[in-house]
């Protein structure tokens, strides 16, 4: 009975030791796989990668189509942006022209009415002078505002063009990196390199290329600094034009009123 107990105990002990040893063995295998893929010297198969080479072309075709569709969408957005900008510019320019024409008509009529009310030569001269000062001030203000708007639009166009050129470069670099990675994978497949190693190298390479591309796209957000500067310059120029105009207008009005008193 004691002998049977001893045998049973030994059996259990052995089973426990075996059970403890199995994970260590498995880990040793995993560690070995990891090291071998990193160094690229040892070919160790891993589950799920046996058909990897057969799928490389399919992956490339599918993802390339996604990229082509994405670029087509981006190109469409670029065209829409240009159209919207041009429409905005044109409609506001047309409205501005109408507003200015109307102002000219209104002011000419108003000055004529003032002239009719002038009694003395001094008053008549004062009205003429008032009209000239207003005309010059309006002209100067319009030139300053037009220059501010033109400069702003030019700045926007430049920012957009720079952005477009950068994006084209980033896309070309990304596509080139991807093509290189896939080409290398295909070569490795043809040369019989272990497929798990090819897969790992390809995943790492693509991940790295995508990160470079994504980081570049994120950097494009820095254009907001340029836009803020453009907006501030435009506003500053506009405000100054209006301030200068209001100063001239106030003085002209005061002078005219003084003459009529």
């Amino acid at each position, binding site marked *: 009975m004691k002998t049977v107990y001893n045998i049973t105990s030994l059996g259990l002990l052995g089973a426990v030791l075996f059970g403890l040893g199995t994970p260590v063995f498995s880990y040793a295998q995993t560690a070995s796989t990891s090291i071998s893929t990193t160094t690229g010297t040892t070919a160790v198969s891993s589950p799920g990668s046996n058909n990897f080479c057969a799928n490389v072309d399919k992956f490339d075709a599918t993802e390339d189509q996604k990229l082509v569709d994405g670029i087509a969408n981006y190109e469409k957005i670029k065209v829409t942006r240009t159209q919207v900008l041009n429409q905005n510019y044109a409609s506001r320019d047309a409205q501005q022209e109408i507003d200015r024409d109307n102002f000219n008509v209104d002011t000419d009529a108003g000055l004529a009415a003032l002239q009719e009310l002038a009694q003395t030569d001094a008053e008549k001269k004062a009205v003429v002078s008032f009209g000239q000062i207003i005309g010059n001030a309006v002209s100067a203000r319009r030139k300053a505002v037009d220059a501010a708007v033109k400069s702003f639009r030019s700045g926007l166009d430049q920012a957009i063009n720079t952005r477009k050129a950068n994006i084209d470069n980033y896309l070309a670099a990304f596509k080139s990196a991807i093509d290189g990675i896939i080409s290398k994978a295909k070569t490795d497949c043809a040369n019989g390199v272990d497929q798990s190693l090819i897969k790992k190298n390809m995943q790492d390479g693509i991940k790295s290329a995508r990160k470079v591309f994504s980081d570049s796209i994120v950097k494009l957000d820095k254009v907001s600094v340029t836009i803020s500067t453009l907006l501030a310059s435009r506003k500053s120029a506009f405000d100054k034009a209006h301030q200068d105009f209001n100063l001239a207008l106030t003085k002209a009005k005061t002078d005219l009123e003084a003459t*009529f008193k």
Partner: protein
Amino acid sequence: MADALRLKDEGKSLRQIAAIFPENEKEIEELFGVVAFMKSKKDEFAPSRSLLGRILQELPESEPAKLESLEKKALISEQMEANNSRQFVIIDNESEAAGGEVNVETIPKNNSASQKTSLKVWDYFHNFKLAPVMAVVVVILVAGVSSYEIWGKKGASEQPPVAQSSLLKFAAVASKPTTMAGALDNVLNSINQDLNNETSLFDLGTADANLVTFDKEALNGLTNTYNENSL
């Protein structure tokens, strides 16, 4: 003129439209002046709430069409049914007070829309219920037209060759500024309007900056291609 207005609606500038119709340049300029003036003065054409309230208070008590007797009502209803017609009852206060008869106009029921409209107008005017309102409307229109006559024309020396109606001429004389301060205010108002228009357009231009990054979403979509996790 209709073509010119259509082109204006399409966003063409005055200069561009005038180039298309050079023979009507002056008329087009006048027309656009009127449009701009009406646009800029649209708020002034609306009488104040207090004025409208006063007008309503001063209106005579609204007296719905009434008949002297139920017999007359019944008679008229019978006639309406029989003739397939509708009737407008016109109350003549004086004749009614003097015991006169009530006028009843019988109109065929299947009359056209234009007939209905003209009848309504006829009915309103006949009752003189809207007379004070119409008077106010006429005054406002005259004031508006006179303002255009004064400020819409190019100058005292450049009278438009187009024949003016006597109403326009009358209105122009009626509200021309008579003081230097009034005339100066008109010029200053015109300048302020111009400044406001310029500022509005300028503010609209600010939104153009947002279009620079209009492609952001499309670019983010590109970074999602060639996902290594799908290998």
